[in-house]
């Protein structure tokens, strides 16, 4: 019975009390909903977009007919075509479809700012035997018979050199239809391709949201200059009652293949590997996005507290009428719950929309660092939605706990006497806790990275240290407030305004402490990220200065994509290095290899003059000058490894390793470790001519040319570009600018989060000041009666806000120095293996400080103006 009465009371409270305030102050309610929605939206969108970016990585057959079962390739991700029958013979007579594949990257000029710009759209182009792909119709369920279906019939032809099939997304983006022509850069050629068909999305599932070009396999092989090999063979087991037995039989047969010449894996493990490879990256994104939920909690807490303050008199009346405190608490929690549900639901919609915008950015990073992804749109995912919704609702309810407790503990007499209420978190009153947290954080920072799987490390200790230091700094800075009156003693003598402002900190309220804690966290994180990006930029600039010394840099378009396999033909690079204007040139042959089950890169450097290691920055310097083109005394091939490689494989100077190549396993000795910020998979650097022989591939990936004195790089660039429109040729200056531009793009999301964090902190400041002044409105009236002008009140409130912000700023800056250390020496080093030089961005931090103080001044001024007009009985 009493439960029933309780429920009725809570509902009545909601109707008469909460709903009335919703109607009375719709702007505040909307703002609160917006806070919840924004937090959930950021979290949801980051999760969705990173999921899409990773799921965009998939094998072709997954797109057309439900997926292959095994993927077979060879050293250097290449299977010589003359070895294909060997694979069939090993698997005979099992009823398998073997689909050789070639994969390239097509740059679509005209879709970016310029054809050779990094912004030009790049899409995967897949070469598949268009006839053999049709056979998959019988490999899958009869209801899915139709595969590789196109919009109009009679368009799939074989043996045609320049025909391409496109997905609907490409058709839409380029505004083309079958029969039209599109320009695409492939390898080092600019091609004019005939659109043969648009692949039907119902059949070609991936095409719905993905940009793909498909060509007949030999045609693409020819265009890429790799007639002698395919990239992989996908093995499809037909459906039927013996599928499971066949899977086992295939595994047994593949195990019989020569492991030095064949590399195979199941499609699931390929997908898992793409998932694992990007796990750390996605977790980093998730952690960053979770911050938005955290600041959301902080804001909601502030806003709910403000609401409690506003409605305290009503609460007092209800209590005096016999309402039980637990009903009041329940009603407030219910209000938080409703707020959480509504806000989170809105957040899901907003998040889904944001994800569509974010996915291409995230996909770009995944493309650049990890694997090729074709994601262009994020699909709705109910699991992620449920998680974001749950987190949003839980966060709102948690944020409402404290104000609910305050509301329930409000004494009627306190309200009637218009007494202030010291809200806040009691933990902030314990400075010892702050010191303990800082010490614990120090211990966390010493923790080694957690090995999620071979080659994937997660700096758990670094994240825990950052969290404990953030909370510790927040606790300590909250306790700094009490020193304000002492610090500003002299200033306070100058006038009543100063005295009034400073006096507010004699016994700092919980709300003031919470506000400063929020500011410390926001400033600390923003400045910490500033330190990281600045250190990164300084290091990369130094690296560029040291390593990019040639006049012209030549690469195929789209080379920044980690999965790009386009190369410069031998004829082209030989022509370029034989140009009489070229004094010396270095040609790079890159081959993806797999070592200990992890993908990495073998880089062969071919130099027209004796190669020198002077351009490298050493992490572990070789004992004597390196001569890559001469075998060592013991017959080993000399090589250098990048820092990421060293961290990934736990190797260093003097170590020996076996490199799998189509020419068999090769013994290589590491002579030194050099710094490289190009990729996190690491690289093994060796003589280019030898590498090209090992992999039977003389095509190059890039070329750096130093011109003879007197030759004009711009002129040569123009001449080469005219002769080779498929090549991206950059002058030294342009390349440096490009590298830095990419670098800044990479950190764009960091800047955005920084700004969101600061904005949220100031919303918190405004709400806190508002609550404080609501609490003190009687005091403000008294001040007015004592002769305080409105402008004096405004000045006192502004000053109070500024002092709060100043403490937050100073403590935040100190915190940022420690966070910068963590980000550079622990989190980044453990995640990517890159050594960065710690550099404090004086200008950046000064701008941030001025910005923070300006924002504080404006926020406080606004609240001050409102306070100056506040009457004793006014509620909002």
């Amino acid at each position, binding site marked *: 019975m009493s439960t029933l009465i309780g429920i009725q009371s809570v509902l009545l409270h909601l109707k008469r009390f909460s709903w009335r305030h919703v109607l009375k102050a719709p702007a505040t309610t909307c703002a609160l909903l917006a806070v919840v929605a924004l937090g959930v939206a950021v979290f949801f969108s980051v999760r969705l977009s990173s999921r899409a970016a990773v799921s965009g990585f998939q094998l072709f057959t997954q797109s057309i007919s439900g997926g292959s079962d095994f993927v077979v390739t060879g050293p250097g991700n290449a299977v010589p*075509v*003359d070895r*294909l*029958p060997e694979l*069939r013979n090993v*698997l*005979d*007579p*099992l*009823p*398998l*479809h*073997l689909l*050789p594949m070639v994969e390239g990257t097509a740059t679509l000029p005209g879709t970016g700012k310029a054809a050779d710009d990094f912004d030009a759209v790049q899409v995967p182009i897949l070469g598949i*035997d268009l*006839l*053999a792909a*049709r*056979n998959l*119709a*019988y*490999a899958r369920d009869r209801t899915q*018979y*139709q595969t590789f*279906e196109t919009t109009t*019939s*009679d368009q*799939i*032809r*074989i*043996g045609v050199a320049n025909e391409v099939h496109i997905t609907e997304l490409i058709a839409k983006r380029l505004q083309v239809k079958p029969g039209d022509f599109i320009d695409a850069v492939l390898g080092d050629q600019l091609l004019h391709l005939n659109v043969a068909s648009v692949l039907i999305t119902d059949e070609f599932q991936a095409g719905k949201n993905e940009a793909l070009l498909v060509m*007949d*396999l*030999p045609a693409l*092989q020819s265009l890429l200059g790799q007639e002698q090999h395919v990239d992989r063979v996908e093995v499809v*087991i*037909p*459906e*039927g*009652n*013996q*599928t499971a*037995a*066949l899977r086992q039989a295939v595994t047994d047969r593949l195990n019989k293949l020569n492991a030095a010449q064949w590399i195979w894996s199941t499609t699931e493990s390929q997908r898992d590997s793409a998932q694992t490879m990007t796990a750390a990256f996605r977790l980093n994104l998730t952690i960053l996005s979770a911050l938005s939920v955290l600041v959301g909690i902080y804001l909601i807490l502030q806003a709910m507290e403000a609401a409690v303050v506003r409605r305290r008199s009503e609460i007092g009346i209800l209590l005096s009428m016999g309402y039980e405190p637990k009903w009041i608490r329940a009603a407030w929690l219910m209000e938080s719950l409703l707020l959480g549900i509504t806000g989170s639901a809105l957040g899901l919609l907003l998040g889904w929309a944001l994800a569509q915008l974010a996915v291409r950015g995230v996909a770009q990073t995944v493309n650049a660092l990890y694997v090729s992804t074709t994601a262009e749109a994020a699909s709705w995912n109910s699991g992620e939605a449920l998680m974001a919704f749950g987190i949003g609702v839980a966060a709102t309810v948690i944020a409402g706990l404290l104000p609910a407790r305050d509301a329930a503990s409000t004494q009627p007499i306190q309200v009637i006497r218009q007494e202030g209420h010291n809200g806040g978190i009691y933990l902030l009153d314990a400075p010892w806790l702050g010191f303990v947290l800082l010490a614990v954080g120090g211990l966390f920072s010493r923790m080694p990275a957690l090995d999620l799987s071979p080659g994937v490390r997660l700096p758990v200790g670094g994240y825990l240290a950052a969290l404990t230091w953030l909370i510790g700094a927040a606790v300590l800075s909250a306790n700094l407030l009490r020193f304000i009156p002492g610090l500003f003693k002299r200033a306070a003598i100058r006038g009543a305004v100063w005295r009034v402002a400073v006096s507010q900190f004699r016994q700092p309220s919980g709300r003031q402490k919470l506000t400063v804690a929020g500011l410390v966290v926001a400033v600390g994180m923003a400045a910490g990220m500033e330190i990281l990006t600045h250190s990164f930029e300084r290091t990369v600039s130094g690296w560029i200065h040291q390593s990019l010394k040639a006049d012209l840099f030549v690469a195929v378009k789209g080379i920044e994509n980690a999965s790009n396999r386009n190369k410069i033909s031998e004829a082209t690079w030989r022509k370029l290095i034989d140009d009489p204007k070229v004094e010396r040139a270095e040609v790079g042959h890159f081959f993806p290899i797999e070592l200990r089950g992890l993908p990495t890169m073998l880089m062969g450097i071919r130099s027209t003059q004796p190669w020198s290691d002077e351009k490298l920055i050493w992490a572990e310097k070789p004992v004597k000058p390196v001569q890559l083109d001469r075998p060592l005394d013991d017959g080993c091939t000399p090589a250098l490894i990048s820092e990421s490689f060293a961290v990934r494989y736990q190797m260093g100077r003097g170590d020996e390793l076996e490199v799998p190549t189509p020419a068999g396993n090769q013994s290589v000795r590491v002579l030194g470790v050099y710094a490289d910020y190009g990729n996190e998979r690491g690289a093994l650097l060796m003589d280019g001519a030898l590498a090209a022989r090992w992999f039977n591939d003389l095509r190059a990936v890039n070329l750096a040319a130093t011109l003879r004195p007197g030759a004009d790089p711009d002129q040569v660039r123009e001449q080469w570009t005219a002769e080779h429109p498929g090549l991206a040729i950059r002058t030294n200056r342009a390349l440096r600018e490009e590298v830095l531009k990419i670098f800044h793009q990479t950190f764009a999301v960091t800047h955005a989060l920084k700004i969101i964090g600061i904005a949220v902190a100031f919303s918190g400041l405004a709400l806190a000041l508002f609550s404080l002044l609501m609490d003190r409105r009687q005091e403000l009236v008294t001040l007015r009666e004592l002769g305080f002008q409105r402008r004096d009140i405004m000045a006192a409130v502004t000053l109070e806000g500024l002092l709060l912000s100043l403490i937050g700023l100073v403590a935040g800056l100190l915190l940022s120095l420690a966070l910068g250390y963590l980000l550079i020496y622990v989190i980044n080093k453990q995640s990517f293996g890159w050594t960065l030089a710690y550099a404090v961005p004086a200008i950046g931090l000064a701008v941030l400080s001025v910005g923070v103080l300006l924002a504080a001044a404006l926020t406080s001024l606004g609240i001050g103006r409102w306070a100056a007009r506040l009457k004793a009985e006014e509620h909002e």
Partner: protein
Amino acid sequence: MNQRRYGLMFLTLWLVGAVCSDSLPRTEAGFRIPTTHPEFTFPRDHGSHPEFLIEWWYITGHLRNADNQRYGFQATFFRYAMTPYGPETFAPFGTNQLFMAHMALSDIDGNQFYHEERLNRDGWDAKADTDDLDLRNGNWTLRRTDGETMELRAGIRADIEFEFQLQPLQPKVFFGKDSVSRKGADPSACSWYITFPRLGVSGTLRQDGKNIPVTGEAWMDHEISSSQLGHEQVGWDWLSVRMADESELMVYILRDVAGNPDPHSTLVWIDPAGQLHAVGSDQFEWSESGSWTSPDTGATYPIDVRLKGVRPDGSPFDFAVKPLMRNQELVGELGGISYWEGACDIYENDQPVGEAYMELTGYSESLEDNL
């Protein structure tokens, strides 16, 4: 839907070549036309003849397991030339030949019909050797192993696998006057038609994960041509019978648009010694006694047939051709040609007198443009 696509595709890809300088008769596109009195050399002529447009190796047979349960099977390897002039070097992904193949199994007692089609270009995964019988289409292979013994290895999706040894029980025969089998008035509508009318089959059928030893008899055609149908012809009805008395019978009716038999339709008796006795369409009667409509293609096939005529010894015959299953239709998903090809028994006076395979084409659409 796409039924016609690949048929049309083949046509668009048949590149028109210049007329060869040799004196052999050729089609306008440059493909050879079968000539009379061919001087076959075996085993070479069991292999491929890429200078002809179309070629197929066609095996149909009846099997029984140890429990006397019955199966019918069909294994067909087709070759289509896209140019009469092959490349000088091997291309792993060639464009000179297309290879299509059909496998089917009729599980009579289980009332299940399994079938699958394949379409591949010449190259690393599909080929037809020109020196001997050595055919591959994916994991399906047909090879001569020893003498004229052949080995067939194939399967249907992940459901069925089979590995059969095929041993001639009768010598091979060559149909047609002067070894050229005429298909129509057009002189180019003809073929070299080499047949093993009775092959002993033994091997293993793998179904539901169980290896089932089977034995039986089969018929094998190897037909080489550059045009299989004359103008106005839309399809054919074909029947091969292995009679219980060790003789065989082969009959085909070439139908025109109105359903009338072409005068070049033929019935041939093969006696146990391999002697042929052929008669024209005016000396036998093929009539429908029942039909079946495909739920997949909507085509109605006259699968119950009466065949009447006179034996070489002058005695009349009146056969009832009874399919062992109604649904033995191969839906042409890839090749664009749907047809009915099924195991049948032959009855005379309500007594079984032979095992047969019957093929009914051109009932879902005309084959005129495709072959």
